[in-house]
């Protein structure tokens, strides 16, 4: 039975809201910008320096095209106001603000940006959309929320899909932006989890001998999680860089409510993503029975619990910021997560600059086959495309053209090139052009470092055994439950199997609550993504 109490009150509110919307809504003609003289010449030098000392002196050329400074500055949006919601400063929030300011300067339109902490972002975006009130025209959010948001998003118009910048977006990230065959998210970032390791240890003959003595094996970037654990174990608690302070083996994101679910999925990927068994790693797509407590996931959680001994003090409660600081600051030998820790290590003032290497996530020597319910002995690797920031325009927005022009400008070639170099912005390679090592060498990266970075990232695009996020309605609830189970096992509150059994039970309840068919239908998009890879 469906009911709405206080019908009168709701009706009055709805009439008032509709009247207000009708009075402020603009037709297509009103939305169209006026033409004005361009403020930039084609190929002008672009830099962020005038916006403060916090920005690098780097200059890039404005690349001609419909999203360039030159093209956008021909548009006059004076009299129109764009409302944007984004994450807190700096990660994605700072570039949102910066490009809003620039957009205002060159188009005359007004852009209001609201920055919201991660924990509140989902609710602040979704609630007004569900209520039918376009509180924001443009929204920046983690791309895995697409299952919740897709019904409220305006498909990206053809003319924006045809821009050179959009055509250069990698296939994986165009797929991530697509829902039921329509591109509804505007790509602005590309995120993947990968391994980072210090080469000053890896290539040091003394450390190599030490490792050989301890394990009888050659020291190299770990190819499996077992090797990762061995290396971390041997070097943890030693001052391996001679700075008088202890170093540690591994830094991982372990704080329950701080993206621990992503770290765990990275560890589980090679155990659960079987190259010959298609059809989803989180659920059986036919029955929607959760697979989260199957042996592959349990093995990964056992590994993660074992790894505790190689973490720095406090490592059992590391948030993403701690992981970035721990590896990027030189405290730990290895870490795995987003680009931030690697970019932090490569900052000009970093003491481990150009002493780091990127590599694919460790794999496994066996993989769980959910079809036969047994382990298959085989070397397996499964790159994890972990969400990444995205943006979208509300279907109910009355400033859609201005909104898409803003996003087009946000991601133009010049802005993207500069944004990629500012670690705190959280903008990471998502176009083929971003995988050019020469670009990174220009930022002062050694050739080897730049090549390891770009080849690791672009190599994931070529993999045919990838894992994507869950991306179904209620994804936050599923991931919150998973993070809670992982945290309980890490804290010793329950065994990995028991913790994940609990998660599976909760996932079933969540699926029932949201609607089995609804979740199954959305989950097909994830299965298609994995199958397409």
């Amino acid at each position, binding site marked *: 039975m469906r*009911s709405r109490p206080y019908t009168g009150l709701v009706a009055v509110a709805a009439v008032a809201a509709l009247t207000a919307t009708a009075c402020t809504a603009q037709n297509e003609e009103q939305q169209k910008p006026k033409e004005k003289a361009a403020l930039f010449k084609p190929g002008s030098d672009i830099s962020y320096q005038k916006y403060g000392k916090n920005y690098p002196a780097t200059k890039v050329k404005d690349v001609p095209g419909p999203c360039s400074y030159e093209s956008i500055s021909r548009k006059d949006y004076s009299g129109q106001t764009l409302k944007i919601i984004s994450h807190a400063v700096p990660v994605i929030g700072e570039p949102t603000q910066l490009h809003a300011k620039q957009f205002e300067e060159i188009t005359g339109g007004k852009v209001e940006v609201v920055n919201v902490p991660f924990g509140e972002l989902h609710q602040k975006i979704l609630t007004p959309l*569900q209520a039918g009130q376009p509180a924001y025209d443009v929204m920046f959010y983690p791309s895995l929320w697409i299952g919740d948001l897709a019904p409220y998003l305006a498909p990206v118009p053809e003319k924006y899909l045809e821009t050179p910048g959009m055509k250069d977006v990698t296939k994986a990230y165009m797929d991530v932006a697509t829902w039921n065959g329509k591109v509804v998210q505007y790509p602005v970032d590309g995120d993947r989890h990968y391994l980072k390791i210090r080469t000053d240890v890896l290539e040091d003959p003394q450390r190599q001998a030490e490792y050989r003595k301890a394990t009888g094996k050659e020291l190299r970037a770990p190819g499996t999680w077992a090797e990762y654990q061995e290396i971390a174990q041997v070097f943890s608690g030693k001052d391996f860089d001679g700075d008088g302070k202890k170093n540690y083996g591994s830094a991982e994101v372990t704080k329950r409510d701080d993206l621990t679910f992503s770290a765990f999925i990275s560890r589980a990927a090679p155990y659960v993503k079987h190259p010959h068994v298609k059809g989803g790693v989180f659920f059986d797509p036919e029955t929607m029975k959760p697979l989260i407590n199957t042996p592959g996931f349990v093995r990964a959680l056992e590994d993660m619990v074992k790894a505790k001994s190689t973490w720095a003090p406090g490592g059992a409660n590391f948030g993403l910021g701690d992981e970035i600081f721990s590896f990027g600051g030189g405290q730990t030998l290895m870490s795995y997560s987003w680009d931030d820790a690697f970019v932090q290590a490569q900052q000009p003032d970093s003491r481990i600059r150009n002493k780091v290497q990127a590599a694919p996530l460790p794999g496994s020597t066996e993989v769980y086959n959910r079809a036969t319910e047994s382990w298959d002995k085989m070397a397996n690797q499964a790159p994890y495309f972990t969400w990444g920031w995205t943006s979208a325009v509300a279907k109910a927005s009355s400033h859609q053209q201005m909104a898409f022009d803003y996003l087009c400008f946000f991601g133009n070639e010049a802005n993207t090139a500069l944004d990629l170099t500012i670690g705190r912005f959280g903008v990471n390679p998502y176009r083929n052009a971003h995988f050019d090592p020469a670009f990174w060498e220009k930022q002062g990266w050694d050739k080897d470092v730049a090549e390891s970075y770009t080849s690791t990232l672009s190599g994931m695009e070529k993999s045919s055994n990838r894992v994507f996020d869950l991306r179904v309605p209620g994804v936050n*609830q599923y991931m919150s439950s998973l993070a809670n189970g992982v945290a309980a096992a890490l804290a010793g509150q329950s065994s990995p199997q028991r913790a994940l059994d609990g998660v599976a039970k909760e996932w079933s*309840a969540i699926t029932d609550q949201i609607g089995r068919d609804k979740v199954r239908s959305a989950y097909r998009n994830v299965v298609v993504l994995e199958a397409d890879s």
Partner: protein
Amino acid sequence: MDGLRRHKSMFLLPGLLTLFLIIIFPLLFTIRVSFSGWNVSNPQLDFIGGANYTAMLHDGRFWASITRLVLLAGGTVLIQYLIGFGMALLVWREVRGRRFWRVLFLVPMMTTPVVMAAIWQTIFHESLGPANDLLEVLGLTGIPWLTESGPALVALMTVEVWQWTPFMFLLLLAGLLSLPKEPFMAAAIDGAGTWRTFRKVTFPLMAPVSVAAVVIRLIEASKLSDSVYVLTSGGPGSSTETPGYYLYIQGLRDQQTGYSGAMSLTYLVLMIVTLTVVAALLTRAFKLKGDS
């Protein structure tokens, strides 16, 4: 006369209207929501009977958070009372720099809880924090303050005690300053010593203020969530989760609106009952002591 009374009662209307809008209506609405399946993907008030309440009865995490809060609140308020009373007694007497000490004691209370928790998070940082540095100087091993269940609870209690003891101090000092002088003069004439005067005069006279202070602090402590959010995020595992924090996760982050409505109402009722009983017991206990 009746007309005047009617006239006067009109002045209550704005207050009543405000009360209805900001308390009664949300409360009634929450009751309705608690019987609905409103969640992140279904923002509808579908009537689902008592399903949320049944689920809550089986939610071990919710009940564990309540048990934990009872221990946390009981423990911290008792410590706050003891320290706060001690500090108030010190400053009540003529001590050098009394005004300075009074202001200094109040500083923690005037700091925003989130800021306070962030500062303590730094203090308790395992490798960089001064708490472990101090232990090392003393030749002791560092403690994993925020990554093991026991120490994390101790850390949380420390922050609570640090921040809210001044509140207790303030109320109790006000109480001490308002006490009549005669009983103390009589005690002095009778030759009562400091401890006897405290036990037989000061403490019994302070009973009403003590009960009020403890109950006010218990009410405040029952809402504990901001320092949990900053300091431990409920972890490790769920070992420092309080009902307030768990409600935040369910209601705001996971948007289980119907379910969190059921939990908040249950929690509200439990707290009202518990605090009423505690207040009654304390009043009775203090009265008995006062009478003796």
